[in-house]
């Protein structure tokens, strides 16, 4: 991975990026999801797109605070982020986190932050469609069974069901669907700030229920497009003692691997 340019450096050189990559907290701090961040950066670099990240100027969008009910904290956070983004005159943002995506795209306009926001699943699909990523014959995932777990914040929340599937299909993978998919997809259990607390008392953990469904497809790979889904699905599969045979990967990782990046 080549050095990653920050928006501050670029601006200092008098340049501006085509697109800002919003990394998100999980993409910045979570060891597992940092690998997704790097895979996505490698794809961006391989396609020669002029992009930048905010680096240490990035902060939480405020999404979990809003969903846990703390509107004050959300708006404090959002207002600060919007000041930074507007200060750099940011126009277009791509992010690998559906929660950041949803907040930036749908909730910031009311607070004065109006940007074109795109999720990395749609962005990768565009790169493939435009021929900026050429899919190699006989890639690592050709004919392999992959099942895609819909992230609620992409699917029901924003009606993005097909872009992630299109990316997987471009890998020539054998895409198998879980019983509950697309608009009836079962949540991984982490949305609505559940990621940051223990689940309420119940019979079962939601991620285990979902992992069982994913395992029932017989897929060797569970594809995700969300950092929280990544954690929950990985933990669910571990809980079923299947982590040695079934892996959980983000779309960007699968695409980067198939490109030998």
């Amino acid at each position, binding site marked *: 991975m080549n050095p990653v340019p920050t928006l501050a450096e670029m601006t200092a050189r008098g340049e501006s990026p085509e697109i800002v990559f919003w990394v998100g907290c999980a993409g910045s701090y979570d060891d597992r999801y*940092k690998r997704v961040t790097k895979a996505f950066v490698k794809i961006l670099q391989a396609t020669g797109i002029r992009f930048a990240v905010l680096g240490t100027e990035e902060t939480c969008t405020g999404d979990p*605070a809003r969903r846990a*009910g703390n509107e*004050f904290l959300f*708006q404090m956070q959002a*207002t600060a982020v919007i000041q930074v983004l507007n200060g750099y005159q940011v126009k277009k943002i791509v992010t690998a986190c559906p929660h950041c995506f949803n907040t930036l795209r749908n909730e910031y306009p009311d607070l004065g932050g109006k940007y074109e926001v795109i999720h990395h699943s749609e962005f990768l699909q565009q790169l493939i469609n435009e021929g900026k990523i050429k899919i190699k014959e006989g890639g690592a995932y050709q004919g392999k069974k992959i099942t895609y777990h819909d992230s609620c914040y992409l699917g029901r929340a924003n009606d993005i069901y097909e872009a992630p599937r299109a990316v997987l299909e471009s890998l020539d993978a054998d895409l198998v669907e879980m019983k509950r998919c697309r608009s009836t997809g079962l949540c991984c259990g982490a949305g609505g700030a559940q990621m940051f607390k223990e689940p309420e008392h119940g019979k079962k953990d939601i991620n285990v*229920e979902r992992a069982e469904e994913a395992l029932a497809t017989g897929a060797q790979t569970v594809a995700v497009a969300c950092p929280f889904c990544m954690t929950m699905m990985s933990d669910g599969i571990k809980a079923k003692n299947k982590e040695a045979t079934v892996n959980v990967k983000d779309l960007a990782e699968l695409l980067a691997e198939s490109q030998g990046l």
Partner: protein
Amino acid sequence: MIAQLAFLFVLGIAVFLIRRRVLFLARTIRLGKANDIKDRTGDRWRNVLLVAFGQKKMFKRPIPAVLHFFIYAGFLIINLEVLEFIIDGVAGTHRFFAPWLGSIYPVLMNLFEFLAVAVMVACVVFLLRRFVLRLPRFWSDEMTSWPRLDAALILVTEIILMWAILFMNASDQLLQGQHEHYPETGKLFFSAFLTPALAGLDVHSLVLVERFCWWFHIIGILGFSLYITYSKHLHIFLAFPNTYYARLETKGQIQNMPVVTREVRSMLGLEPAGAGPPSEPGRFGAKDINDLSWNSLLSAYSCTECGRCTSECPANQTGKKLSPRKIMMDVRDRMEEVGNSMAHGGAGLADGKSLLGNYITKEEINACTSCNACVEACPVLISPLDIILELRRYVAMEESGSPAQWNAMFQNIETNFAPWKFPAADRFNWAKENR
């Protein structure tokens, strides 16, 4: 003449009681916060046409959808006949439209009879699904004795009313040509199967049967109309306004709180304090029904307790206490409690109770993953999620009563600008790490 007076008397009582109840419902809904919904009228009418009128979302589950469609079509179309009942009742005529419509009349009557039979079949299947197959969503915790009885009463009443139509038509068929009051209407297909049962009766007894069924049906319809206003069955009317006033934004978007925006902007020095209209009085978020917007309250009365929301809810499916249907039922029950208390000069909202606490617990709202499965599942565009989020706002901002781990997360965001306890300075370290 006596029959006409009796009819007017019955009709008058029904209109009086229904009007009184409708005014009560309107008053109770208006306890909610103002929410001026005037935008995107085209999209709103589109929702009414597709979702309420066209039943689009019902068809996600095709078998109940088809059965439900029969009852729905029966309701819409057979009620045209009620118009004739009322005209006949007031004017003392019999089958007022028959001479006007001529040969179309028996076609219409046959259609009504077909629908009456279809309604009966659908209601029987629904009773079997509910009480014999015992579909889990009709027997979960919030489906206590009253919701179960309510459902049974509705289905059984509809079956009995349809029998009354068919027996009335059967006796009418036999009377035609025997009694000058009964004009020829042509053959009716379904009620013809019932005529053998009445064939031995003389004209006098047949008139008695016909009149009994007529009165039974119209009093039944009027009584049922009044019952509906007290029942989950209100959805047959309120589904229409509810789909009109449903939120149109993408489901992921949580509604902004402009009051907070003003405060935050003045705290950050982006706006002079006191700029813009003054903050609305009242609380942040919702503790009781009057903190919810009026359209959330309307949606509580629009809920028919089908339980599709709950059967799709990931928290509910894994045994958590949360049930989106219960949220809607609790809102409605609290509205009824407050509304009744106010109507009788009681304490109303100041009765020392509240929606959060006495009806809905924190454990329930804390279990929600905001996944929108319930919102997606609702055939009439109700959002239990909007209500859950308003309750969470109250807990977080007015009580500071969120779960401890959420409070820790809030603190992390405030101090490290990330929900986890990592130093802000390390945020960009990933770019320097190998791999």
